[in-house]
């Protein structure tokens, strides 16, 4: 992907990826009551790329991610200021409909959270409530195939999603998000509860999904960020410290804080 040519480590100009952008955050501030969790973050996420959000625990990654499809609406006392543009529209402007935004910006959570029902219904529920008109059987199969789960569950679609292993459950959750055919998929540490081989499967999956979706992934695991992402954003204490092509952020970071973090000096 995009490779920086000059890597001047003291260059303070903010990184400017090339449009079109799937999501664009402009001077976003998020607070829980009086406690400020995200400070003045501006971030442009180009379409069909994978952007990793990294940073030490509590730095505001989840908060920022959840603001991108208005999942923080469900947190009492969370306030967002600034703009988050999706297809050029500010999703926080007064007429914006959070429900329709979430149809187009899906989410995969840290802990696999399939519905306590069959594998098939896990996939079809979202499209059904949103009035999907196509062939549901086909939808189930393609979604599960894209989530690299089809071969493992093809014969037992009517069994409970909860009967699957953790890694399979997480891929089911990815399949469920894919079935809505969103533009963007937000993932909050999707592998943190999984074993290494499940993690590897999901990482490979992400690389394939990039063709169709834009993915923003929060990860604790820096190897993972390096393996899957095109761009990396490093956050620290609510601020976006550095954002750039993943190779640059890891190999030639502009900020000392970033260098310390990616070299494992704290976190």
């Amino acid at each position, binding site marked *: 992907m995009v490779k920086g040519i000059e890597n001047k480590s003291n260059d303070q100009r903010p990184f400017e990826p090339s449009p079109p952008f799937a999501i664009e955050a402009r001077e976003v501030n998020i607070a829980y009551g009086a406690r400020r969790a995200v400070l003045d973050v501006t971030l442009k996420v180009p379409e069909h790329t994978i952007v990793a959000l990294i940073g030490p625990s509590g730095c505001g990654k989840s908060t920022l991610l959840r603001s991108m*499809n208005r*999942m923080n609406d*469900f947190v*009492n006392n969370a306030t967002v200021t600034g703009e988050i543009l999706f297809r050029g529209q500010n999703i926080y402007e007064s007429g914006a409909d959070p*429900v*329709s935004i*979430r*149809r*187009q910006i*899906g*989410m995969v*959570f840290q*802990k696999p*959270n*399939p*519905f*306590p*029902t069959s594998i098939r219904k896990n996939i079809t*529920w*979202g499209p059904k*409530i*949103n009035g999907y008109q196509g062939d549901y059987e086909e939808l189930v199969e393609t979604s599960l195939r894209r989530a690299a789960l089809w071969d493992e569950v093809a014969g037992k679609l009517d069994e*409970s999603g*909860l009967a699957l292993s953790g890694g399979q459950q997480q891929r089911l*959750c990815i399949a*469920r*998000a894919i079935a*809505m055919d969103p533009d963007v998929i937000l993932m909050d540490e999707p592998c943190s509860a999984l074993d290494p081989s499940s993690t590897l499967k999901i990482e490979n999956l992400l690389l394939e999904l990039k063709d169709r979706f834009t993915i923003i992934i929060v990860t604790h695991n820096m190897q993972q960020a390096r393996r899957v992402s095109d761009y990396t954003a490093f956050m620290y204490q609510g601020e976006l410290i550095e954002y750039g092509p993943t190779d640059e952020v890891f190999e030639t970071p502009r900020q000392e804080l970033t260098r310390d973090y990616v070299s494992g000096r704290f976190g």
Partner: protein
Amino acid sequence: MVKKLLFICALFCVIVTLGIVFLLLEEAVGFFQQVSIKEFLLGTNWAPMFEPRSFGVLPLVCGTFWVTFGAALIGLPTGLGIGLFLNDFAPSWLRNLVKPVLEILAGIPTVVYGYFALTVITPWLQNLLPSVEVFNAASAAIVVGLMVLPMVASLCDDAIKAVPRSVKEAGYALGATKSEVATQVTIPSALSGIIASFILALSRAFGETMAVTLAAGSTPKITLNPFESVQTLTAYIVQVSTGDTPQGSIEYKSIFAVGILLLAVSLLFNMLAFYLVKKYRTVGE
């Protein structure tokens, strides 16, 4: 030592239960020597006091059915609605107001509920519909519905609160509205607790005595009109026990037969609850 003490407590509980069953059976046997089980269960005329006597229990069953059914109609959906509302829709100040009110409601003695039915609900019904009798099944049903409401609401609230937040979030993240998540994710996930609360409420309504005696009256009859006076199984037992019925007489013995019927149906409710809760347990976890 403690273990022994606890064992005695447990034993006491079993002995009391067995004692009650034994007492009921002993007197009921005497009753069934004079009245056949078939006549008792299928007979449509309940006239225990006056000649010609008749011991067909269906009129009492009908009264009990009306009260239980009506109470369920009012108490169950409302209770579930309150539980859902408190969890997913109410602002916290309202929640903090409603919870204690429910607890107070649950603590009001049943005789007060009965009095409330007679002096408030019945006149109100009569206002709407002049043909309503002073004692009537509908008034009893409404008041018993109100009576079980706090229990249903509180148990449903607990069951719904136990639904993991993450599962609801999964629903929202798929572009579901609040009410879609509430009805299609939250309620199914909490189903075992909700069903348990419903059956407890049914069995409470079914066995409720004081309020229904006051509100529904003591006219055993099979009727389709809920605005007439009826008599429930429990109200009949009250009527005989508080009257000057001589011990050993057939009408005295009849209350034990009615008692056995009450016990059997309560047992059935419990078994049903046990079965359903088990059946839906896996869904909720």
